[in-house]
């Protein structure tokens, strides 16, 4: 057990998987000598050499495309997009090939690769560095889409992602990279992809979130408990696709009231699918409209105003009260 930041926990996952399996390698812009602009891949080049910790040219489509080729050849590449906002340069490779190669080749070439990328706002970054567009990946057949909510889940899910026979998009919250620590076991730990979990039990309201927003949601839940005397249940999705609706279905059937929280833009955002599933599975249990507390349908403002864009504890509480009082 060690008390690790998310950066350290992800680094641990990479290091251990590289030690265990010489098919695993990392590649991307500045992931080698520099150890990544957030130091996530720090030291890997010393331990594994520049052939397995590869500094690439600035070429996202090339990075993803090469990773696809490596996976076809039998390796297990973990490539990095320096920021999720630049992953669109490679989207045609992700949608056109990573997601399709197994299917196109009738199972001959699976693509066991992971595309890691920092996502989300809150760190005073420049334009394009604060987005949260998980829907684009979650809506693409053939991909898995994972967003851990802390150091321990990040480490365990990344190990699972690396071992997964299919391509996994792995979002890492920049906001959480160094802002919290968790005990992470030294020994191997995995978490199944496609399983959400209840992180706070309650019976009055179901709060669904993931990634950095989970923590604000949990804070809001505490506030509701203290101030309003209601006990919210909080579900951490962990995987966005395949979306696990079992946990929140159970919860919604119990509470009848729901708020969904994410920092992605509102329209056509992740909450839509969650609300659709609730409609399909728990319609008759609902006592009030589902509330969504989300980013707005605007570009993330430059950092002087970015906190206004992001759901904050007050805004979540406000949304929750609507769901509770409707």
């Amino acid at each position: 057990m060690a008390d690790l930041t998310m950066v350290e926990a992800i680094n641990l996952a990479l290091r251990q998987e590289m030690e265990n399996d010489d098919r695993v390698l990392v590649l991307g812009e500045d992931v080698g000598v520099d150890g990544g602009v957030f130091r996530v891949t720090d030291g890997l080049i010393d331990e594994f050499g520049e052939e397995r910790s590869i500094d690439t040219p600035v070429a996202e489509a090339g990075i993803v495309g090469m990773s696809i080729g490596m996976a076809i050849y039998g390796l297990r590449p973990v490539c990095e997009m320096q920021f999720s906002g630049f992953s669109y340069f490679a989207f045609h490779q992700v949608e056109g090939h990573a997601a399709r190669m197994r299917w196109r080749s009738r199972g001959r070439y699976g693509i066991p690769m992971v595309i890691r990328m920092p996502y989300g706002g809150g760190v005073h970054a420049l334009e394009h560095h604060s987005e949260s567009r998980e829907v684009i990946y979650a809506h693409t057949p053939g991909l898995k889409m994972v967003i851990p909510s802390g150091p321990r889940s990040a480490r365990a899910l990344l190990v699972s992602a690396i071992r997964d026979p299919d391509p996994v998009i792995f979002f890492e919250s920049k906001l959480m990279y160094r802002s919290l620590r968790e005990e992470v076991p030294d020994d191997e730990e995995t978490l199944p992809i496609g399983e959400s979990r209840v992180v706070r039990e309650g019976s009055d309201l179901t709060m669904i979130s993931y990634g950095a927003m989970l923590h604000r949601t949990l804070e809001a839940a505490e506030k509701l408990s203290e101030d309003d005397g209601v006990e919210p249940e909080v579900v951490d999705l962990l995987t966005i696709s395949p979306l696990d609706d079992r946990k929140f279905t159970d919860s919604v059937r119990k509470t009848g009231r729901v708020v969904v929280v994410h920092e992605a833009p509102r329209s056509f955002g992740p909450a839509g699918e969650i609300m659709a599933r609730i409609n399909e599975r728990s319609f008759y249990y609902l006592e009030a409209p589902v509330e969504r507390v989300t980013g707005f349908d605007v570009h993330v403002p430059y950092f002087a105003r970015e906190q206004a864009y992001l759901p904050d504890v007050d805004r979540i509480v406000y949304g929750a009260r609507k769901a509770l009082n409707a």
Partner: protein
Amino acid sequence: MPRKKFEPGHDVEHLSILDEKGKLDSRLEPEIDDELLLKMHRTMLFSRRFDEALLKWQRQGRIGTFAPVSGQEAAQVGSAAVLEEEDWMVPAFREFAAAVWRGTPPVGLLLYTAGYNEGGAIPEEQHDLPIAIPVASQLVHAVGIAYGIKYREREQVVLTYFGDGATSEGDFHEAMNMAAVFSTPIVFVCQNNQWAISVPREKQARSRTLAQRALAYGMPGIQVDGNDLLAVYVATQEAVERARAGKGPTLIECVTYRLSVHTTADDPGKYRSEKEVKKWEKRDPIPRFQNYLGNKNLLSKDEIEKLEKEIKEEIQGVWHETEKQMERLGDPMDMFEYVFHEMPPYLEEQRDAYAEFLKERKENHDG
């Protein structure tokens, strides 16, 4: 030295051995054993006839659209023939001749063309990638495979195909650059067939040759007469040797021509003249090579005729076998397969719901 010329570090060469008049430059003639020569010829001829058959079947509505290979057989067979079985071949979407050379069963190609996903399967022992339709997108995969080869210290090389149009895409650039930066064992074979659908080569790029694009990457580039199987073979052999010796990538521009339509949805009458096509028909790689084999006493007129008959029958056999298979295929439930290694619960649910719907519909219909 304040204002001085800078040498780019590589020359760009042009290579032609057997010219369109059938004239052979015997100093450059490669030594290829007779069996291989004849096999190359047969594959070219088969591909041409298969192409013609596909076109006919398509016009009859029996199959869907496809991208004919006619005219480009030498560029494909002359390069693919240099590869060992263990080497990798990464095609675009027009490489039926190369695929046949590599051992892809024509039944598979036909099934694919008839709209069955089953046709996309690659035989287990074949190191080829499936067809890649998004232009130039396959090149970066080829570089990744080549990186893997280097990482594993294997003797393999990768050969990848693309068109003149593909050289305008960003993915071409990223692939070429990364292949050079990582000095990977790969050969880039550009089939410059003069057209990207309706856009002629001159509107695609202002450079005199496509081969000289190699200079941007510090990579050797060579332009060959792509309808001259011998030149293609020699240039590929040099490039493959270079790659296998750890000396990195090469770009080969095969100057050739698409004699047929772009795909069966295309009408070349909109954009190019019959005269141009006629000019290129005279440069047809197949008669030229037959002539060469004839001069070497390897192939007589009679033998060609026999071969034509044999191929015709073979193609009929392919059709019959494919038809038989098609009868067995088409279960819509197949569409849920192969999306993931293991079907996730939500897909199982969608599949089961669809099956339930089909069952009820059938019952209603029957009932």
